[in-house]
C-alpha cells in the first residue's frame, strides 16, 4: 500500500536524526528503533505527519532519534499529551513510547484511561522488567523474587501483566512482540499503525546491563518454540518445536495438551482476534511461562469509534441541529437589558 506513486516514499534513513543514539551497547532498544523506522517508512505516511511522544526512562529518549515531530514529556504522562494533540489533529499519526516503569507504575492511570477512550494513538511499551535509567531497581513487571539494588532479598510485589491491563481497559488493538524477532516486530508495528483506535503493543526488550536474559526463554532459538505461541487469527493454538502441543479450554481455564492420542487440532482453541468480547484475549494474557507458553502476536483487533471521532461527531450533530454558534449569540444567551 505504500508504493502508490502519489505517496511520498520514505526510507528508514529519512527517519533518522543527526543525534547520537545513547543507549547502552547491546540494548534491545536499538532493534526497536531500527524496525520502527523500517515499518513507518513503508506506510505512505508523510514524515511531517508522524509524531512521537514519550515520557521518562530509557525508552522515552526514542523521539530524539526519529526525524519526525517529537515531544519528550514528563514521567508517565505521555498518553495525556498524545490525547490532547490527537483530539483535534486526526491527520497526525501519533505514537507514544513508554516503558514498564513509565507506563505501568507512575503512568498507570493515564495508560488505562487513554486506552478506554480509544484515542487513535499507538502505545508502544518496551517491557524490560526493570528500571534502567535510575540504574536497576525492580519494576512493576519484575517477577516476584527479582533481586535488585532496591530488592536485595528479592522483590515481593506481585507483577502486573501489561496486556491484562490493556485488555481490562478494553483496548481495541493489543499485541505482543519481541525485540530480537525483527520480522515479527516490524509486522506488529505495521498492524498497529494500520489500526484505527488505541493500539497497545508490548515489546519484550532485553536490558543488557540490569536484567540481561530475562526473556531468554522466549527469545533463545533452542527453547523459544516450546515457550512461546505465535498467534494467528482463525488458526488453532498450536506450539512447540515439533508443533505437537496446543492450548485447550478446560472450563474457564486454558490448559496445555499434547496432540495425538485422541486429541486433535479440532479440540484446541481457535484464535479469534476480532472477538468483540475481550474475555478470551484476557485468558491468553494470563498465560505465563513456565506454566504456559507465552502468546506472541495480535491478541485483539476490533473496531470501535475513536475518541476524536466522537468528539467531532457531537459537534457536527449539534451544529446541524442548531447551526454554528456566533459570538453575538453567545454574548446575548442570557437575559439582556438596554441602558440608555
Amino acid at each position, binding site marked *: 500500500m505504500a508504493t502508490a506513486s502519489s505517496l511520498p516514499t520514505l526510507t528508514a534513513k529519512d527517519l533518522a536524526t543527526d543525534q547520537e543514539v545513547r543507549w547502552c551497547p547491546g540494548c534491545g532498544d536499538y532493534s526497536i528503533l531500527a524496525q520502527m523506522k523500517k515499518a513507518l517508512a513503508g506506510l505512505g505516511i508523510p514524515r511531517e505527519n508522524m509524531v512521537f511522544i514519550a515520557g521518562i526512562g530509557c525508552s522515552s529518549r526514542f523521539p530524539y532519534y526519529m526525524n519526525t515531530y517529537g515531544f519528550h514529556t514528563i514521567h508517565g504522562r505521555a498518553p495525556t499529551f498524545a490525547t*490532547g494533540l490527537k*483530539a483535534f489533529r486526526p491527520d497526525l499519526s501519533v505514537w507514544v513510547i513508554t516503558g514498564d516503569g513509565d507506563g505501568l507504575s507512575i503512568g498507570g492511570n493515564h495508560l488505562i484511561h487513554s486506552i478506554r477512550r480509544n484515542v487513535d494513538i499507538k502505545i508502544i511499551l518496551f517491557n524490560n522488567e526493570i528500571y534502567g535509567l535510575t540504574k536497576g531497581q525492580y519494576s512493576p513487571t519484575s517477577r516476584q523474587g527479582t533481586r535488585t539494588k532496591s530488592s536485595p532479598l528479592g522483590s515481593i510485589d506481585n507483577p502486573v501483566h501489561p496486556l491484562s491491563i490493556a485488555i481490562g481497559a478494553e483496548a481495541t488493538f493489543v499485541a505482543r512482540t519481541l525485540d530480537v524477532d525483527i520480522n515479527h516486530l516490524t509486522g506488529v508495528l505495521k498492524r498497529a499503525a494500520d489500526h484505527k483506535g488505541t493500539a497497545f503493543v508490548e515489546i519484550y526488550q532485553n536490558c543488557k546491563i540490569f536484567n540481561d536474559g530475562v526473556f531468554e526463554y522466549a527469545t533463545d532459538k533452542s527453547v523459544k518454540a516450546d515457550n512461546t505461541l505465535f498467534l494467528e487469527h482463525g488458526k488453532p493454538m498450536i506450539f512447540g518445536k515439533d508443533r505437537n502441543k496446543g492450548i485447550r479450554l478446560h472450563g474457564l481455564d486454558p490448559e496445555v495438551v499434547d496432540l495425538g492420542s485422541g486429541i486433535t487440532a479440532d479440540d484446541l482453541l481457535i484464535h479469534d482476534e476480532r472477538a468483540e468480547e475481550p474475555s478470551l484475549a484476557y485468558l491468553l494474557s494470563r498465560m505465563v511461562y513456565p506454566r504456559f507458553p507465552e502468546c506472541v502476536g495480535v491478541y485483539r483487533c476490533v473496531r470501535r469509534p475513536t475518541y476524536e471521532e466522537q468528539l467531532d461527531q457531537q459537534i457536527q450533530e449539534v451544529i446541524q441541529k442548531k447551526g454554528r454558534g456566533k459570538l453575538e449569540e453567545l454574548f446575548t444567551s442570557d437575559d439582556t437589558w438596554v441602558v440608555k
Partner: protein
Amino acid sequence: MQLAGTQFTNSSAILGNDISTLPDFPAEIRAPAGTLAGVSGFQVHFSSLDIHTPGDRLNSLVAMNPAALKTNLKDLESGGILIVNTDAFGTGDLHKAGYKTNPLEDGSLKGYRVFRIPINKLNREAVAEVKLSPREADRCKNFFALGLVYWLYERPLEPTLRWIRDKFGKNPAVMEANTRTLKAGYNYGETTETMPVHYRVPPASIKPGTYRKITGNEAVAMGMVAAANIANKPLIYASYPITPASDILHYLADLKRYGVKTIQAEDEIAAIGMAIGAAFGGALGVTATSGPGICLKSEAIGLAVITELPVIIIDVQRGGPSTGLPTKTEQADLLQAMFGRNGECPVAIVAPCSPADCFAMIFEAFRIATRFMTPVFFMSDGYLANGAEPWLIPKVEDLPKIQVNHPLTPNSNGNGEAHFLPYKRDERLVRQWALPGTPGLEHRIGGLEKEDVTGNVSYDPINHEHMIKTRAQKIANIAEEIPELAVAGPAEGDLLVLGWGGTYGSVVTAVQRAQRKGYKVAQAHFRYLNPLPKNTPEVLKRYKKILVPELNRGQLSWLLRALYLVDAVGLNKIQGRPFLVSEIEEKIDQMLSK
C-alpha cells in the same frame, strides 16, 4: 436558595440597577438541613449608584430557619429588616442550630425590624391545589419568600415567571406550584400590610449599551470562546472537576456548536498534559483548576516553560492549604503561581479584578501566551468565579485582535540543508510555533535542557545558565506589551492602596470614601502580576506609605518588598470571605489619622 438569589439578581439587573453578588454555600452537596454547616446563603447588593462590592452590612435578611439566622444575623445592620420563617423555629430546629432559647421569643432580636411569617404554611396553602407530594410542595417555599422580597423592593415578577416556565416546562406541576407560590408571596406583601415599608430602587446611571449579568466563571468561558474565534484557533479545554472551577467546564461543554472541544480528564495531571499536547499541535490549550490541582500540575507546567509552549492555566483560588475550604474564597496561591515549580521556572501571571473583567483578562492571557510562547496563569478566585455583576456586552468587531503566526518554511540553512531550529528566537526572545504536519519543520522538544537555537539536548553548564536567563528575560519582556499601572486619585500623596485580583471592589470603595474624607490617598490595582507593569517602582516612590490588602498572609506585599525594597504594609484577612469595605477603610484611617 442559590436559585432564588440568582433570580432576584437577574430581576434587579433587568430593572437597571447596578448589582454585585456573593453566593455562600457549603462544600457538602446535601449538608444536613437546619444545621449551621448546611446553611446556603446568597447576598445581593443592588443600587441606583455605581457599586463594586456585594456590600458589607445587610439591610435585609431572610432567614428560612434558625441556623440561617444564627450564621448571618451578625451581618445585619441594626434596625435592619429581618424576615423569619416562623414555621421552622420548633424545638428540634432550634436545637440543631444550637439555640438554647428561641430567639423569636427571648428578646435577642429587638434591635431589628422583625417580620414573623409562617412561610411553610403559606406556601403549602399556595400550592395546595397542585398535585405534589408534601416534600415537593415544601421545596417551593423559597419562591414564596422570593415573591415577598420582590414586593418589598418592587421587582417585576415576569422575568422569574418566564424562567420558571423554561426551567420546569417538562414538569407542569412543579412549574405551576412555583408560579403560584411566587405570586402568593408577592400578594402577601401587598395585601396583608404586615410590612409597613416598601422600597423603590431606581435604575443606576451606568454607561449606555446592552447589558447582561455575568459571573466570573461564565465570563472566562465566553472569553475563551471569543479569543479562540478571533484568533481563528481551535479551543481545547481539558480539566478535572474541582470546586470552584468546574462551572467553566460545564459552560464550555455546552458550547459545542461554537466548535469548542472539552475533555474531562482522568486527573489534574492528565488535564494539563492534554492542554499542552493541544498547544503543541497548534490549539489554544487551556486547563482550569483550584489550588490543590495546581500542585498536581506543577511538573507539567515546568515542561511547558522549558518547551516554551502557550498554554493557559486558570486557578480559581479557594481556601487552603490542602483541601482547605473548597467553596470559600482566598488569594493564597499567588506565590505558588510565581514559584511553585522545581528549578528557575518563570511564567506569566494575570489576574482579573471583577467577574466581568474575567472576560477581558482571559483574552489577555491568550494574547500573552501566543505572543510570547509561554504558559500563562489566570488567577481567579471563588468570589470572582461565583459572584455576578452587569456586563456591557462588547461588539464583536471591537474585541482585541489576536494574531497568531506559524512558520511554514525552515528557518535555517545551517549545514547546507534547510531545517528548522526550534529555539531560534526573535528580538523579543520568542521562539517560533511550528506545527506538526508542516513539511520540513520536523523537530523535537522536551523536558531535558536544550541547546539554545538548535534545541538539541545539552548538558553544557554555560548553555544551561544562558537558557535560564533567556527564559526569565523573555517573561520580563512581556512588560513592554502590557499597560502601565494606572493610579486613581492624587498622583502623589500619603498613601497608596495596592491590590490585586478579586479585592478590587472593596479597595476602590474604601479608597473613594477615604478620599471624600480628605485623605491624600490613591488606589492602584495589579491585573498583571508577572511581570509587573514597568512603571511600578516609579509609582511606589510617589507615596509615603503603601498598603496592600490581600486575602492571604501578605504574598503580594512579600513580592513588592523583595522586588522594590519598599515598606509595604499588609492588611491580611484569611477567613474565606472577601474584604468588607469598612475593614479597609478602618486600616486607611489608622494609617493616616496620626
